[in-house]
Structure formats: structure tokens, C-alpha cells
């Protein structure tokens, strides 16, 4: 049984039919990527999984359990953590307070240690720990958003375009981090427009087009697929 199962979900914004029967699976330990053009429905898929929007039909299951009855905040306690599109750092909270909010669901006494671990991973954040997050650069905010999501010690991490707006060197850093998080046991569902990078670290991938999954395969096969190359990898 897959860790996350999305079964034929339909999601609407008023009368815009944004997801038209999306199904996908993420197995424990995998990095799965969801690629697609602007407006394909990638963000909507993640928002539906995390319960921020409710599907009108279909199911989202975590380890076989239907999530329809859970509120977004309860899903964090079930092990799902999300880095939203556009990072969503709390601009008026300090860097450290943002990290503490990432650990809101936890009551153990290892939170302090984990904050130090995030600082080891992103030394920039340590330098700016008392600074309000709104004053960070885009790249630093992305580090903070990623670190903050990790503070929940999730089993499943949903990432919405972590490379958006970052310089190539930072993109590599973020992708390295994602791989490391995954190696330490966190399952990852990664939404990306940077399909090349995403496929290079993913085990499997799905291609979303105007609210429908049009392709799914191993990352390697997708990178060699003619249609994917043409539409998403910029290869003629």
C-alpha cells in the first residue's frame, strides 16, 4: 500500500474545474515529482492533499486512512508538512520564531536541538535568527520555509516550487537539501516547474496538464520521453 494515495480527485474554485480526476501515489521513502505548466493544477493538488481545499469527489488517503474528516492542522499531527507556494514565511516573526512555529505540533524536548540542526544546514539562518523573516532575501526565505517544514519532523513533505525565483546555485543547494531530507527518511512529493532538476532527484514523476495526469513513469523514463522533453525540458 502506498503511503499517500490520491484517487480521482476533482477540485473546483467556484465554477473553475481545476482538477479533473487526478490520481497519484507516493510510496514510503520515495521522492515523487509532479510537473506541469503554469495553471496545470499542481498547487491545487497539494492544497487538496493538505486539506486547504476540499475535493468535490475522490479521496486522499494516508497509509490507507481517508483524510476527508481531518482538518488541515490535524494533518500536521499525522505527519504531513507542506512548504506552500511563495514560501509563506511569517514576515513579522523572527527567523527563529518561524522555526518554532514549524515545530508547533510537537511537545517533545528535542525542538531546540532540531533548530540547531537547521542552523547547521543553513548557516545563513543562524546569522539572522533574531531578524524578522520579512527582511530576508528570497533565497533565505526559501531556506527558512524548508527548514520550518522540517521542524515538524514530517513523514511526508509536500514542496511547492522550492526553486522558484532562486539563482541556479541556490537551486542546487535546495535540491541537495531535499535529497538529504529524503535520505534521512522523509517521503517527498515535489511540485516543480524546473522539470530537469526535479526529475534528476526524483524516483518517479507525474505530468499534469490542465487538471489531468497525462503521463506517469519513473523519473528516468520521463526525462527521455519525447513529449516531456519537448514541453518541459526545452529539448527539441
Amino acid at each position, binding site marked *: 500500500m502506498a503511503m499517500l494515495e490520491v484517487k480521482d480527485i476533482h477540485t473546483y474554485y467556484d465554477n473553475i474545474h481545476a482538477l479533473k480526476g487526478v490520481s497519484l501515489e507516493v510510496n514510503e521513502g520515495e521522492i515523487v515529482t509532479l510537473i506541469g505548466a503554469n495553471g496545470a493544477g499542481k498547487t491545487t493538488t497539494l492544497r487538496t492533499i*493538505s486539506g*486547504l481545499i476540499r475535493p468535490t469527489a475522490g479521496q486522499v488517503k494516508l497509509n490507507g486512512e481517508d483524510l476527508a474528516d481531518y*482538518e*488541515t*492542522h*490535524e494533518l*500536521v*499531527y499525522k505527519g504531513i*508538512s*507542506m512548504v*506552500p507556494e511563495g514560501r*509563506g514565511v*511569517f*514576515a*513579522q*516573526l523572527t527567523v527563529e*520564531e518561524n522555526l*518554532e*512555529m*514549524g515545530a*508547533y*505540533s510537537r511537545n517533545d524536548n528535542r525542538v531546540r536541538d532540531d533548530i540547531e540542526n537547521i542552523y547547521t544546514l543553513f548557516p545563513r539562518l543562524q546569522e539572522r535568527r533574531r531578524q524578522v523573516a520579512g527582511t530576508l532575501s528570497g533565497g533565505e526565505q526559501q531556506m527558512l520555509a524548508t527548514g*520550518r517544514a522540517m521542524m*515538524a519532523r514530517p513523514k511526508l513533505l509536500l514542496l511547492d516550487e522550492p526553486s522558484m525565483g532562486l539563482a541556479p546555485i541556490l537551486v542546487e543547494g535546495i535540491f541537495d537539501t531535499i535529497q538529504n531530507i529524503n535520505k534521512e527518511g522523509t517521503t517527498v512529493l515535489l511540485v516543480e516547474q524546473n522539470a530537469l532538476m526535479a526529475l534528476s532527484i526524483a524516483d518517479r514523476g507525474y505530468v499534469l496538464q490542465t487538471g489531468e495526469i497525462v503521463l506517469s513513469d519513473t523519473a528516468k523514463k520521463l526525462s527521455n520521453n519525447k513529449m516531456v522533453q519537448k514541453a518541459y525540458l526545452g529539448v527539441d
Partner: protein
Amino acid sequence: MGRFFGRRINFGDLVVQLLQVVVLVIVVVALYNTITTGRYTSRHWVSLIFAGLAQGSIYALIALGYTMVYGILRMINFAHGEVYMAGAFSTVFLAQHFASNGFLNAQPVLAITVLILFAALVSMAVAFLLERIAYRPLRNAPRLIPLITAIGASFTLQYTFRGFYGTQFRSYPEVTALRGTVSLFGYSIPIVQLVVLAAAVVLMFVLYWYVERTKAGKAMRAVSEDKAVARLMGIDIDKVIVTTFLIGGALAGAAGVFNGLYRPQGVYYFMGFFPGVKAFTAAVLGGIGNIPGAMVGGLVLGMLESLGPNAILEGLGIPGANQLKDVIAFTFLVLILIFRPQGIFGERLREKKV
């Protein structure tokens, strides 16, 4: 619109700036007149300042309720004056009971603490019901709707409490221990004013510590910034919203008792209206949504009301100045909204920030 030395001049801005100058000139002339006539001694001014601080700390406690709810929901809870009234009005009976059985004067600290707790509980209950019944169902409604509901809720509460306790004016009993004055820097200051001021300052420090330092307080600030992301952190935003209303209620209830100690008379079902509007003015003055702003705004407004009649209105030769306190507060509200809608510390009241 026009051009003036190559810079674009907005007609509205020009009017506002002119008005600003006019107001400034009037205030300066008035102060000059007051000072040169030398009618009042420093003793008089100091006593007005302390009276203003005591009254202002009561405004500040109520203002915190407005500002915190605004910070979380971007909504003005116009029924907050009634939250205050509910605590103040209900507790007057307990206070009279404590006075008649001697508890109040035998154990004033304990008795007043009990009164504060009781008032806080009543006000919290009212704030809780308001949120649950009146505002929660409208959380996603257009902004005007909860505003109208708040005004409706305000009347409902006034007439409910009128139904409970009648139309008669009540008074808080006098506490002997609070009678008299103490000498401070050679000026004699009524004890009750100092007690009210000190107690309010303590409550404000506790609140500030809660919001800045505790996990729940940080979650409150997170919810105020971005509800969707706060939910993704595992924060139950409904709980945070209820907590905000409860804290606002507790502070308003406490303010009700402080008011009863400071100005014992005039306890009745409509008593929340003026303090409500004034506390709202204080919250706007400090920058709505800003917690230290509400504290400072309350104190400033209290002092302005206290000093204003003698310092400014009399300087302008306005007769019966001491009866014009309320006019000062409301004039001031209008002036802030024209000249500095974002208040002392705050951002401009924005259409949409959520």
C-alpha cells in the same frame, strides 16, 4: 489635481495639509493663552495628568480587545463596549454584597481580586458567545456584514442586560483603603488612581509577555499574519481566535472593575457605549492591530481628555470646557482618521491584508 513647481499636487493632500496647519495653530495659540494667563498651578496640572493616566489605563485595557480582534480577524468588534459593560454591570451586585457583609473593607485586596476575576469571567463568557454565535458563521462573508452584525449584537447585549438587571443606575461601593491620597514628588495623588494605573500596567505587561514570548502568543501572531500557513503549521486557528476573544474579554472585565473603583457611579446597561467608542479611538490612535499601540493610545487619550479642556479649550475661550471631555475624544478620532489613519505605530487601515 494641479502642478506646482513641477511637482504634482493632489488637491486632497493639499486640503489635509492646510487643515493640519490650522489645527496646529489653534492648539499652539490655545496653549499659549492658557499658559500666559497662568490660571492653573503645577499642582493642578499634575493632578490632571494622573487622573488622565488612570482613566487612560482603563481605555487602554478595553482598546486591547479591539486591537487584538482586529489583528486576528481584520474586523472591528463594535460590540466590545458591551463586553465591558457585561462584566462591569454584573459585578456591581457582587461588589455591593461584599460591601454589605464587610468583606470588601476587611480584605480589600482579596475582595477586589475576586471582583476582577468575576467580571473577567462574565466578560469572557459574553465575548465567547459573540464569537461563536455572531462572528464565526460570517468568517468568510464580505467585510460589511460582520460590522452590521456587531452593531446588532451590541443592541442585543444592551437590552439583554437591561432585561437582567433593569434600567436603574447602580454604583460601586466605596473601598476605604482606596480613599485618600499619597504624596509623590511633593504632589498628592489619589490612591485609587495609582492602584488602577499600576494594576493595568501589570496586566499589560503580562499580555505583552504572553504575545511575545509564549508559544501560544507566537501562534497568535502567526495566525494574524497568514491563516492558511498557520494551519499548515498545525495551528488550530479557531482555538486561537477564541483565545483572542477571551483575552480581550478578560481585560475588558477587569477594566470594568477598575472603572467601578475609580468612578463608582453610572453603572447601567448603556455604560459600555462611550468607553467603547473611546477605547476604539485609542486603538486607532495607537495603530489598530498593534498591541503596544493600544496601550499607549489609551494613556494618551486619557491624558488628552483630562488636560484638553483646561489646556486647550479654555485657552480658546470656550465656556464650560470641563463638560466637553467627550467632544475632545470624538474630535480627536476624526482628526486621527484624517491626518494619520495608521495611528502612532500602525499601518494604514487596509482593505485587505488577510
